């Protein structure tokens, strides 16, 4: 972050739901082309943090910045239009549409024709259709789904539906990509190739924020890890350092275990989320 404008920054971000504080005073920034993993036990506030950044929730207090622009409280579509694109933990693909139609919908951000050009099927609208179709095919090839473009999205196996949602997000040509548990439902080789894909795209200029439970992916893919627990940021740093952080271990295994001396570095690598 030294001297460079952060791609994304949150300051004192807080969100309450009634008496429950889902996210509390989180400060964090993400440098351009960085891959940041957000980890934490279930209910730690990770998805709420994503919802706050992407405009699906308004913060109770605190601010969100995209580069130098304060985007706190902007509608989700306007934030997405900036290039801050997200995927969803519970998958929001368009099940009845074909695979390629799903991805074509992702191209909305950088295309321009409106109702009148569409109504009259003007050349601009049809030219855009061809561009969008090509871009969609390209995005499908990038995630490794090139041969299923005409299948109905809901007929894909779950892992491929995940990849489809990522392809749709890529089709938006994001500057910042927020992935909510992208490897859930993926096989180990699929997860590894997703990490490789993130690294390739980062080289092309994309910044990543990834909620991830798979510690192999975190260790392998992330430049930096932010750990949330009960809505607060409890640790931040390179994956290896965070993995050894006693507070992180306590968050995952429960405070009692630490105080009883049962947890040590040897127990950390699994980092199974504890049930709440």
């Amino acid at each position, binding site marked *: 972050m030294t001297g460079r404008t952060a791609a994304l920054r949150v300051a004192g971000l807080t969100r309450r739901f009634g008496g429950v504080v889902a996210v509390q005073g989180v400060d964090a920034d993400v440098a351009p082309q960085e891959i940041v993993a957000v980890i934490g036990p279930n209910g730690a506030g990770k998805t709420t943090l994503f919802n706050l950044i992407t405009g699906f929730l308004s913060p109770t207090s605190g601010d969100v910045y995209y580069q130098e622009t304060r985007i706190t409280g902007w509608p*989700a579509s306007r934030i997405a239009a900036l290039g801050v694109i997200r995927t*969803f933990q519970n998958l929001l693909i368009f*099940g009845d549409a074909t695979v390629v139609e799903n991805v074509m919908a992702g191209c909305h951000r950088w295309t321009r024709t409106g109702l009148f050009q569409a109504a009259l099927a003007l050349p601009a609208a049809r030219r855009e259709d061809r561009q*969008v179709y090509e871009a969609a095919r390209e995005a499908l090839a990038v995630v490794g789904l090139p041969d299923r473009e005409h299948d109905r999205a809901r007929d894909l196996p779950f892992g491929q539906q995940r990849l489809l949602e990522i392809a749709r997000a890529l089709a938006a040509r994001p500057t910042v990509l927020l992935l909510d548990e992208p490897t859930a439902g993926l096989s180990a080789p699929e997860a590894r190739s997703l990490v490789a894909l993130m690294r390739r795209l980062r080289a092309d200029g994309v910044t990543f924020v990834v909620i991830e439970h798979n510690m192999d992916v975190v260790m392998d893919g992330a430049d930096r890890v932010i750990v949330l627990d009960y809505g607060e940021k409890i640790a931040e740093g390179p994956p290896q350092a965070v993995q050894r952080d006693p507070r992180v271990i306590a968050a995952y295994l429960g405070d009692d275990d630490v105080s009883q001396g049962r947890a040590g570095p040897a127990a950390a690598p699994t980092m199974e989320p504890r049930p709440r």
Partner: protein
Amino acid sequence: MTRERAGFALLAAGIVALPLVVSTAYALTLLNVIGLYAIVTLGLILLGCSGQVSLGQAAFYGLGAYASALLSRGLGWNPWLTIPIATAAVAVVAYAVGLPALRLAGHFFVLATLGFGIIVNVLMVQLVSVTGGGNGLRDIPALQITGIHPATDRQFYYLIWALALGTLLLARNITSHRTGRALRAILASETAAAALGVEVSRYKMQVFVASAAYAALAGGIYAHYIRFISPSPFALYASLFFLIMAVVGGLTNIWGGLFGAAAVTVLDQVIRAQVPRVFPRVGGEYQTAIYGILLVLIMIFFPRGLVRGAIDLRHALAHPLPATGGPAGAEPPEE
């Protein structure tokens, strides 16, 4: 694409040829009314493509009719001018109605359009000095297509069906291209659409205004075709009637609009003619009951409309194992 073009050409040819086969005044009037209803229904289906339902289309239809009738009667303007003016004015009204109404989610938006429809109908009845109240407006200037004589039924037939085909093409195009992709995204999941940068409320407003303009255009033609208007054909009952046409056609199926309008109008004629023969003493309420039951049955068994429903059914019979539903829901993201 080419299949669609062939279908459209076949449809257009059939429409051009139809008056050569059927030429009784009754049949022509019925076809003209179907054409007008088809335009309203197409608007409603366009709206349905954004996942919205309106129970106020009869009000827009009526506003188009009254506005064009009043302008041409009061100011002596040519109906060829007043119909587009009325259509544009109703589009502005729809925009004003949409500003608050579109903030409401789902069922509450339907209720808002329902309330709007009732208010408009009450105004038509009560603003006697402007609308003529329950007596309506008589002597509405005729539309002239050739020369100085009022257009004939047959001329109206070609005008109405040219407009129906034109609005069909426009609706088909709007639901293609970038706008169509945005609408389909909204229909599938407003959350996912917004996450891709689609301004959900803007697109909903656009199709809402377009649907009102469709209804107003049909209403304007109607006023100068029948040349007499009164509040009753624009009451809530008519809105329900239009909605059933859209549902029969398939709420998101542009091509189903013509079918829905034709099927329900013909059914209505049959019911009007046959039910009194079987049950001589029933009142007019039975129609509402029949339509209510019809609406519920179609929504339960053919939620995609009768045309697609039949295709689905054939598909299901040919492939007995149904495709399992994917996890693609429309729930808001939550932790």
